[in-house]
């Protein structure tokens, strides 16, 4: 009932489409950038889909994905990365760095790398931040007799991974600690992944749970990024929200495939597989 009530209100919200005319934001493509040392340059395409000008700025910082205690991916940022950290943030520049995108306007941003001399072969990382806000800062709201007006403006940021590769780089992953259990109406799966090689492991983890007869009863597929090591948690919806008692087998595969990224930006590695016997009471 509460869901339907919220739904009804949300429907009304969707119908208030004149508000869309105040949209401010930016569309970014691609959402992951790879730069090769031989060209030392890349590009981003920005587009303002709104009907108002958008102030856009670009910046870089150093950070890499980690997982929290719940298995959710988070970004660990390092304000002053040491020389032992493969940071490219300090020698990457965007041109232009600031711009005003008019409604429906596109802009290509050039990314130029100026790495230090004698940079060792390897992969270096940075995060690109694309920030956008409306060209003006209106204060909305209606004043009462006290003369107080209140408004909160929206600003949006997109944080993208950037990898700079010099020389031959390779990646793979080691999987261990596979565990699983039913939590509510889902199967929850945990896995410890440690990157091997000289480059970040960008890929996908797929899992399938089969019952005693070999019939697949639940699956999941989730992108992963392993820069050092992570302990991600995955969930698979159970049929009818539960499983009958009995033996089950969970199979997990980690591959360097990604549906959302261009294949030429991915480093290939041999798939890693693991499995687990489960007996549900």
């Amino acid at each position, binding site marked *: 009932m509460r869901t339907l009530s919220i739904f009804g209100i*949300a429907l009304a919200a969707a119908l208030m489409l004149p508000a869309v005319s105040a949209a401010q934001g930016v569309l970014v493509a691609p959402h992951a950038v790879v730069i090769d040392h031989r060209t030392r340059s890349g590009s981003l395409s920005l587009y303002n889909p709104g009907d108002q000008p958008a102030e856009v700025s670009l910046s870089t910082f150093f950070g890499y994905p980690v997982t929290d205690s719940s298995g959710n*991916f988070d970004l660990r940022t390092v304000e002053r990365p040491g020389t032992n950290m493969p940071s490219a943030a300090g020698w990457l520049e965007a041109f232009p760095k600031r711009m005003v995108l008019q409604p429906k306007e596109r802009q290509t941003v050039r990314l130029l790398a100026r790495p230090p001399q004698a940079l060792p072969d390897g992969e270096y990382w940075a995060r690109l931040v694309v920030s956008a806000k409306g060209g003006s800062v209106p204060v909305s709201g209606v004043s009462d007799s006290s003369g107080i007006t*209140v408004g909160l403006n929206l600003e949006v940021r997109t*944080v993208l991974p950037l990898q700079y590769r010099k020389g031959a780089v390779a990646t793979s992953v080691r999987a261990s600690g596979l565990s699983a259990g039913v939590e509510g109406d889902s199967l929850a799966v945990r896995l410890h992944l440690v990157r091997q090689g000289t480059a970040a492991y960008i890929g996908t983890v797929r899992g399938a749970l089969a019952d005693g007869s070999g019939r697949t009863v639940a699956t999941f597929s989730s992108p992963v990024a392993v820069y050092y090591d992570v302990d991600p948690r995955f969930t698979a919806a159970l049929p009818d929200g539960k499983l009958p008692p009995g033996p089950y087998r969970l199979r997990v595969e980690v591959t360097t495939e990604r549906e959302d990224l261009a294949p030429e930006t991915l480093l290939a590695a041999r798939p890693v597989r693991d499995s687990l016997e489960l007996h549900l009471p």
Partner: protein
Amino acid sequence: MVSASSTGALVTIPAANLMRFQLFVLLPALAAAPSAAAQVSITGIRDLTFGQVIVGIPSSVGPSHPTKSGQFRITAPLSSKVQVRFTLPDALAGPGGAQLPISFGSNDAMAIGSAPGSTPITFNPKATRNPQFQPSTAYDVFIGGTVTPAGNQQPGSYAATITLTITNF
């Protein structure tokens, strides 16, 4: 069928009477992101507004409010996973350095996917979420809040900024 996880995966239930709503959500999203697959967009659609504020009386706007809630739209490629994080102010800045406190409750954010059968889920805007764009490739994210003007709140205009950051891993 219900597909849910604490990581923010979209909750999906079949409900034919929701189709009309999904069309309304999907069409603007498609209009905003018409072309390449490998792109991500985040757009601030509507500012969070409080309307009339009376001194000494807290004023709240829920995330499902049809005109006053703040609204963002996020689009991303199918199967991708992002982190969604709000940066929220503690107060709005007014004339002469005056401050107007604002707070955000644990149910002051709401997300709706664009896929058929999507249903709204509420969440705490102070916590991060990691939704996977499967089956939806667009989410509308709404936010509300509460302002608490003091009895002697100085008249004038008060403003602040809410930032929504999406991180691609």
